[in-house]
Structures are given as C-alpha cells and as structure tokens.
C-alpha cells in the first residue's frame, strides 16, 4: 500500500494542480481516502490535511471510509429524482443508520449517491455491487437490505 502511494505521488508531479488526480488514483487503488493517505499526500505536497479534506469533500466521488461488503449506489439523476429517489435515499439512511458516503459499523453496507447510471427506464434505481434493483418503493428498501444481510451470514 505504502509503496503504491509513494509511486502515485512520484509519478504525478507534486503540485497543487495535481491534487485531484492523485486523490482519484489513491481511491481507485485503496477504495477510499484514509487518514493515513491524506496525511501522506499532505506531507509530500506540503499541504495541510484540512485543505486536502476540504477539496476532497467538495466532490461527491471521494469517500473516507472503506466500502462495505455490499456497496449500494443510489442514483440521484433527474429521472430517479422525479420518481422519488430522495425518499428512497432517506429510507436507506434510516434503515442502515448511516449517511450517504458512510459505511455501517459492521462493515456490511456502504451507501453512495451517484449521478445518472444510465438506467432511467428503471427509475428509481440502485445498484448493489453491480446488481440493479429497479422501480424501488419505500417498502422494498427493507427487503433488499435484509436479503443481502442474510447472504452475508
């Protein structure tokens, strides 16, 4: 891991302009931006971690916790929005007791908001580890969660 990061940092020229590509690459390899990663980037680039965290939180794409065993991507694109994805999101957050971007404390679920995933016909739609669940209703949220939870035991 450490070596990887060093490589990413060496490969990209160390300048503030490269911050975002560097963070993207780290997330791609490690799945999320850890405290350790942010600290190391900060040291190399001579940037305070608060600045890096500020930049990273500006974009939805970065996460700061490892993804769960089941990673739920919830579409908040236009079609899904029109068909009520906001209430679906609320329900997921309520059932899982986490906010979008977070991972449940048992490590089983993580929740991410994504823009249109190109399945507008299925709206409102989510994808769990690549598996699509279409035309969601509030009542189906609990079922979906339970089905994965059962699988994980």
């Amino acid at each position, binding site marked *: 891991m450490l070596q990887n990061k060093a490589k990413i940092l060496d490969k990209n020229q160390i300048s503030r302009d490269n911050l975002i590509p560097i963070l993207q690459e780290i997330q791609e390899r490690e799945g999320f931006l850890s*405290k350790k990663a*942010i*600290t190391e980037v*900060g*040291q190399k680039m001579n940037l*305070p*971690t*608060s*600045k*890096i*965290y*500020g930049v990273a*939180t*500006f*974009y939805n794409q970065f996460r*700061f916790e490892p993804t769960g065993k089941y990673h739920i991507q919830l579409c908040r694109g236009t079609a899904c929005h029109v068909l009520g994805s906001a209430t679906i999101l609320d329900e997921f957050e309520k059932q899982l007791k986490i906010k979008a971007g977070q991972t449940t404390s048992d490590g089983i679920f993580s929740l991410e908001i994504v823009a249109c995933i190109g399945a507008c016909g299925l709206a409102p739609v989510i994808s769990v580890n690549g598996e699509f669940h279409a035309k969601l209703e509030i009542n189906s949220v609990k079922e979906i969660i339970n089905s994965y939870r059962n699988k994980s035991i």
Partner: protein
Amino acid sequence: MKIEINNKWVETFEEETILEVLKRNNIHVPTLCHIKDMLPTGACRICVVEDADSGKLIPSCSFPVYDGLKVKTHSQKVISSRKTIVELLLSNHPDDCLYCVRNGNCELQSLSDNLQVRERKIRGNKNHHKLDLSSSSIIRDPEKCILCGRCVRICEEVMEVSAIDFINRGNKTVIGTTFNEGLNTSSCVNCGQCIMVCPTGALSEKKHFPEILSAINNPKKQVVVQYAPAISVSIAEDFDFKAGTDVNGKLNAALRAIGFDKVFDTTFSADLTIMEEGTELINRIKNGEKLPLITSCCPAWVKYAEEFYPEFLTNISSCKSPQQMLGAILKSYYAQKNNINPANIYSVAIMPCTAKKFEGQRDEMTNNGYSDVDAVLTTRELSELIKTFGIDFKNIEPELTDSPHGVRSTAGKLFGVSGGVMEAAIRTAYFKLTGSELLNFKVKSVRGLKGRKEAKIKIDNLELGVAVVSGLANAKILLEEIKNGRDDLHFIEIMACPGGCIGGGGQKINADENALKERMKALYIIDENETLKVSHKNPEVIELYKNFLEEPNSHIAHKLLHTTYKKRDVLL
C-alpha cells in the same frame, strides 16, 4: 488620479481598492469576508457599491480604482442588494440572539439592524450542526456560521496552522477540521485569533464562569486570582475608557468586589520567569548547550512546536509560563506559609488569551496532583463577570494587589507586548553577566508592532543575537532559516498573536482600530514612569528565593517551575 464618490470628487492613489478610498474619506460601507491588510476574496458581496455610469454593482473591497470612476455607496440599488444578502444570511440562521454570546456585539446583528431588516422575508431550512465542545479553549457553533471564511484565512495566513477549512459543497458547506472531527484532535493551537475575526457567535471561548461562581460561593475554598500584564491596560476599553488606559487599581478593587479572596499580579511571576529563563540562557551560553533558546510563555506557540517543529522542543526554555509559575507557587509556598491545604485553594487566572485555558489543564502543569491553575478567564469573560456582579467599574476606588506575589517590576509588565520578554530578559542577563545595569534599560530595537524584530546586543565580549517574532507564520519563516543553517541567534521570543498578548485571542472583539498601539504605548509609559525596571530587583522575588526557592534553576525551582514537552501527534 480622481474618482467620484456620491457626486464628490476625491483623490486616490494607484492600486487602491474602492474600499480603501472610502475608508480614508470616512465613508462607511459594510464588509464581511474582508479582513484588513489581507488580500480580498470578494466572496460575500455585502460591500457592493454602484458604478454610476453602468449601474452595475461592484464589490468595493476587491475592485481597484481607475481614473474617472464614479460610484454611489448608498443608492437604492445598493441598499436593497445589501439587504437581500443579509436576509439570505438570516434565512438559515438560528436567530437565537437573546441567548448568544455575541448578543450586542455581532456583525450580522448590527448589519440587519442598520439595514432595517424587520421581517423574515426568506425562509430557508435551518442549519443543523452539533456544537463542537471538544477543545479546552474554543467552542465552535457551526449553526451560527455565515461562511465568511475569515477564521480559515487567519488560521492559514497569520498562524500557518490551517486547522480548519471549508468542507463539502453548496448548502452543505461547513467550516471544520480534517475529517470534520473535534477541534481537540486537530492541529489547532488555541490562539483564538479565529474568535477575534468571527462576525457572529460561531466561535467563542470555553467559559469558566459557572465553576468560578461556585468556587467563590464555597466557604471551604480560598479563591485566589492573578491577572496577566496585558489585562490592566486592556480591560478599561469595555467600560468606556480610552484604549490604553491603565486601570490596575480599579482592577484589583473589582476583583475583590466580585469575591476573590486574594488578588495577585502575574507580572510578579513574569519577573520570576526572567530569573529562571535568564539563568537558563546564561548557562546554555556558558556551557555550550543547545542554542538558540526559545521562550515558552506562549502556550499556542508551544503547541505549535509540539506539532509542527518537534525538532525545536529542546530549544524551548524549560520554564513554565508566568501563569503556571504563579499557580505553582500559590499551591506550594503560599499554601504552606498560610497554613492552607492546597486542595482548598481555587486558583484563577485572567488572561488576554484562550490558549491559556488549554495550558491550564495540561498534565505537565501540576504538582503533587494539584493543577497549578484551576480556571482561566479571558479579558472578555472578566468584563462579563464585572457586569454580572453589577460593579460600577468607572467609579470604583483603586486598591493595591495582595502581598507577597503582588509586587512587580516594569520589565515584567512588558511581557504583555511582543518584544517585552526579550527586553526584560536582556536587562537581567546584562546585569548577571556584567554586574552593572544596562544603560537606561531600553532595548528599542525589539520594540514595536512589526512581526519580526532582530538585534545584536553587546554584553562585554558577547554579541548576543536575538530575534522576536509574533504571528506564527513569522515564526515559521524564522525557524526554517535556522533549520537551513542560520546560527547567529542566542535567544528568540515567539508569541503566537500578532503584537503579542495585547493582541491576544481573549481580548475585546471589535476593539478600536488603534487599540493595539494604545495598549502597547501604555505598557511602555508604565516602564518609563516607574522606578523598579528590572526583574532581578523585585524585592518579593528576591525574598521568595531566600525563603523558599534558594536560587534560580535550583532543584526545587525545577520541580515547581519547569517542565518538558513532547512531540504531539495530530493531523497536520
């Protein structure tokens, strides 16, 4: 070059902003994101004026003047635009002015008053954020934050700490630490300069009022109080005196009226610090030990070093700060002499500083299990206390401090201003090394409000290299020079707050523009007018050594008055 303001032509200089011209001509336009002497960001747009030719609104804080520019500062368009901005800011604001620490001293409140905002026009969702109570010095209430960004800039540009920044985007934006965790786990050094620039109640000091109230009312406790050198020349401003009025006697009287049993002056222990630190300096020079020696009185600087420059920790003097020294003496020597169980002493310090609250609760700052100091009040909190107790500060009869530990030299008094510790130390080091006093005592080269001052002081054959910096950004530059091989310095004074403690993070918010200068002047006038100008002649300090401490850097002095620091792991 000329521009027209409200149909009147005025002279301007090249590269001035409209705002600077307006200020010079005593025309007031409000600002929020702007900080004096810093590059404008133009983020809030409350400072807009109307371009009289085009009718466009332009931000005066960031707009450079050009010849022939015509502006209107209070046209209908301007006023209603400012009003809308304030209404927008209020739309998600908690509106609990009556319960707010900044009630009566809030820029948002006075803006909405001045712009006659009298009804709620825009209803937005209220902010919901938790209070951050994790720090021992500073409380953050993000619900009251209007995102002007002044705290972020001070922390980054003046302090080089960058503990906080903007997090998230759009209406989710907040100001917070890395990973949005408590301030206590961040690199925050507790200097409180963010509080000084915050327009609202989003940042304030952790109050120690309830603890003090109950201690004062507890018959078992002897409640002792000490106040820092800067307090007597600062507190007056809250009671309609001119900035820089020295009200030492009234301060003593007010503290007794509140119910403090004994009133001491931290300046006494500033003198004690000079005895200890001066001796340490001389020993280090004589024995060829690690130099430069760096002062340790400023707890914000000490924490900064623990985090950012641990390699300099052995350069930092082992002396505790004057606050802690006096605290330690009161719970040892004073307690013994007066037959009081130290457990029954409640020791309060009044400081121009928020970092002193942090310092007071550090593990290092104890002796036999007793905290040297139990509670720390800022200058602001003292004003509140005086008002709570209904004391007529203006007319109260002056009184003296309690003795011993109340007599002070004027050298100790200079601790309140950047360069003062240095000047006091030089006076005593000079005497210790040569046996005679420094000619007319003054060390002019380390005076003034500049962020960095240096001098070479001839003491017999020794050419003492000294540097004084205030504002941690300035400290950083100097420390980097030393890291890169600079070796002509023997002694460095570092204060976190620009100008030193007179500009501390616990001082009056929105003080008069000249306040800093006036407070400084007041300290030098005291030094000019009084006769006891050197710490080593303070009779009560001499007596303390004779009766108790033996000599500077003695075993017992070390046990009570010195400490060491360790590298601190935080997210930098």
